[in-house]
């Protein structure tokens, strides 16, 4: 492999030969390379968040008909660095009576749990942190530990509002975990393995064409898992005064913020890897760097969708959110999984276009059926039509017209 086609493995190879040449035992060389590789990956992930924050602020600004930050550096690129420097030098206020252990460890867990998911994501054909055979289960398990960060934060601040907000946030997160875990089944089913690199390699038609409704449910539930608008009850900035983050200041709050953006990008990475074909593209196997570029483009497109949703939708009420997940998304995801399994077994696998067409038709049928059912059975009045209010306004308008 040459340096241009596959730089990371080239450097790793060169480094391991160098260390072996110095006489170190091969096990120690492997552990040293792991430490260097994982340290670099984690640092790149944390530094990448500054670009993500800039990207989001620019796009939200444009959607709201204004420029984003554009003073500090060309196109405002250094704004995030300026914000980082500011937040590093703010005081860490520790209020009276906090439980210091949960209070301190909450931001660390919130970021650490998301960062650990980057270990199993395949960035190109042969650059993956570790090729775990149970990658999907690892992602679900470690992703679930992120909820501990919220509970520790809410419990450790000696504050009723933080505690209540932490409860609501955890209720939301575990409720949306149910269809999330079920929707992970679809790529596992269609590719026959829980290894993320195998799932990417098995995507001859991308899985979004074989299970579009499953991809949609995965997208919605993963945005709810992150806790972004429209599902951001946990840190509703105008309602709960930042929720479980109330008593945090300085870099501890900065870490929660970083964890939020890192989690959003991680779910767009997962969406691209599971449903959009990961690093697949023309010549991606021969030139692995191209695979990296394709993956980057696909996950940026998914992240752009996440930002668009944030900028354009109002927030859900908590009971609307709970109803949506337990009464609509969970039965729907179970239906999609079982029907996809049934139809995929019945259709002939060798005629590719018949298979794609049949599965897309199935998803369209399920979607239309759900739409009709929701129309018939889900009529909740948005607000009560109050006859007194109508009469009063008619009376006042008549007065204005006469006068």
């Amino acid at each position, binding site marked *: 492999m040459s340096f241009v086609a596959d730089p990371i493995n080239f450097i790793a190879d060169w480094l391991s030969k160098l260390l072996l040449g110095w006489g170190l035992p091969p096990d120690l060389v492997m*552990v040293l390379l*792991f430490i260097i590789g*994982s340290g670099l990956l*984690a640092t790149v992930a*944390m530094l990448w968040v500054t670009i993500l924050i800039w990207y989001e602020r620019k796009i939200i600004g444009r959607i709201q008909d204004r420029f984003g930050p554009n003073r500090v550096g060309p196109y405002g690129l250094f704004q995030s660095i300026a914000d980082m420097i500011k*937040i*590093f*030098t703010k*005081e*860490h*206020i*520790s*209020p*009276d009576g906090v439980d210091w252990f949960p209070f301190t460890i909450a931001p*660390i*867990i919130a*970021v*650490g749990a998301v*960062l*650990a998911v980057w*270990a199993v994501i395949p960035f190109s054909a042969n650059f993956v942190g*570790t*090729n*775990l*055979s149970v990658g*999907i289960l690892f992602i679900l398990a*470690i992703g679930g530990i992120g909820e501990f960060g919220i509970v520790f934060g809410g419990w450790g601040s*000696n*504050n*009723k*509002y933080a*505690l*209540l907000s932490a409860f609501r946030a955890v*209720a939301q997160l*575990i*409720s949306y975990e*149910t269809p999330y875990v*079920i929707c992970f*089944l679809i790529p*596992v089913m269609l*590719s*026959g*393995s829980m290894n993320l690199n195998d799932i990417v390699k098995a995507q001859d038609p991308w899985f979004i064409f074989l299970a579009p409704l499953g991809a949609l449910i995965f997208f919605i539930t993963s945005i709810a898992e992150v806790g972004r608008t429209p599902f951001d009850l946990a840190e509703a900035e105008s309602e709960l*005064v930042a929720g479980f983050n109330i008593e945090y200041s300085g*870099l*501890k709050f*900065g*870490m929660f913020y*970083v964890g939020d953006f890192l989690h959003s990008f991680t779910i767009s990475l997962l969406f691209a890897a599971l449903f959009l074909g990961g690093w697949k593209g023309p010549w991606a196997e021969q030139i692995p760097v191209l695979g990296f570029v394709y993956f980057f483009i696909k996950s940026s497109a998914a992240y752009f969708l996440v930002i668009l949703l944030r900028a354009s939708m109002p927030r859900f009420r*908590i*009971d609307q959110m*709970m109803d949506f997940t*337990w*009464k609509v998304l*969970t039965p729907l995801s*179970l239906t999609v999984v079982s029907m996809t*399994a*049934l139809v995929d*077994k*019945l259709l002939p696998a060798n005629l590719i276009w018949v298979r794609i067409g049949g599965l897309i038709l199935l998803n369209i049928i399920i979607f239309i059926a759900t739409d009709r059912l929701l129309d018939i059975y889900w009529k909740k009045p948005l607000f009560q039509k109050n006859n007194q209010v109508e009469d009063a306004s008619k009376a006042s308008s008549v007065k204005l017209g006469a006068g």
Partner: protein
Amino acid sequence: MFNDWIYIAIFIVISLFLPAAAIMMAYFLSPHKPNAIKNTIYECGVETVGDTWVQFKVQYYIFGLIFLIFDVESIFLYPWAVAYQIMSIYGVLEAIAFILILVGGLMYAWRKGALQWI
């Protein structure tokens, strides 16, 4: 295969260590001037009333129970999904029967009012 898990262990340690190191660094770079007003707990600008660790609604607990059941169900479905490509239609029908039993449980919880937020 053991190498995979060593990498995971190293990665988890590093991913916990990086934010901790950043917070430590910021602890040295930031001022420390606590005073009585700054350290009070926030409650909309007034003094806090009563103990903080209040009793919570039982509905949270019920959602936790229902989540537990469906989470365990999904974990049981993972080995089935991995073996999906090499099983016959009979295996798929068995899994659909399993899912239908649990959907029955969801319907029961729904009708009993366990899924209401209030």
